[in-house]
């Protein structure tokens, strides 16, 4: 009987996607990497717990929008709307990782809902990046207006 890692790998491949599989580390945790819709996703499984796995994907934050304190607040707000997705700022705030932890009753259940989970993660991640960019753009626009006003440009 194949383990969860092997089942998920076979499933993703059967759905048309190439999978890079890293061997399990010392703790028995292994990672599968695949691309879909231009985004790389990672599926992590543990050898001692076939029912649990997590899916992650990373989003690069545009250089001009890298404000860790504000971005953490934005990620917290999006987390409230998507409580099953955990966001983590990484690499000095240049990117964030969105992770969805899942516990399936069976391997079949896990596979049946797989693309739905990917979709939930993608929606949450897209909303987070949009929120970060929108907030930064609004702030820049407001600062431009205030600067212009302070320099006597206002009527």
């Amino acid at each position, binding site marked *: 009987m194949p383990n969860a890692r092997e089942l998920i790998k076979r499933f993703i491949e059967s*759905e*048309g996607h190439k999978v890079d599989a890293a061997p399990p580390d010392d703790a028995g945790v292994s990672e599968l990497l695949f691309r879909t819709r231009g985004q790389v996703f990672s599926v992590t499984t543990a050898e001692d717990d076939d029912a649990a796995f997590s899916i992650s994907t990373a989003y690069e934050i545009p250089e001009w929008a890298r404000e860790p304190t504000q971005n953490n607040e934005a990620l917290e707000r999006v987390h409230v709307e998507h409580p099953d997705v955990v966001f983590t700022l990484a690499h000095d705030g240049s990117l964030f990782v969105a992770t969805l932890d899942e516990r399936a009753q069976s391997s079949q259940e896990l596979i049946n809902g797989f693309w739905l989970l990917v979709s939930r993660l993608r929606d949450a991640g897209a909303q987070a990046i949009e929120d970060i960019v929108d907030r930064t753009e609004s702030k820049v626009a407001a600062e431009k207006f205030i600067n212009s006003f302070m320099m006597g440009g206002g009527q």
Partner: protein
Amino acid sequence: MIDPLRPIELALADEGLFYTRDDDEDAYRVAFKSEGDRYFVVSYRDDPTFVMIGSGWALPGGVDAIDAIDVANRLNVRKKFVKTALWEEESDVLFTVELCVNTTGEVRPHFGRLLNVLRDTASEFFDQLREDDAPPP
């Protein structure tokens, strides 16, 4: 002889997808899946500047063909790139992007976008069909 669909194979590699080839004396063909859904790319030997990317779906049983054509028409008016058509005595629906290119290398940088549009159009087609079928509140 240059393989006109080689750039499409490279685009599929960019997307991290497997593919198969099924060329014959009339056409070059690539078949692939993305998230489990099947797609194809065709280029004809006697019309090498034409390339078509598409996907075909069976209509659910009990769907009224007139309703389906109506949804397809509405999508054809609104969607960029994608043509939606009922096929095979109205039992299948076909979503295609048809392009005129000097080489399919021109398609490669836009392949992800075209796939997204095909995916979204199929999804909207079936969502609208369900909505049109739903009983009035």
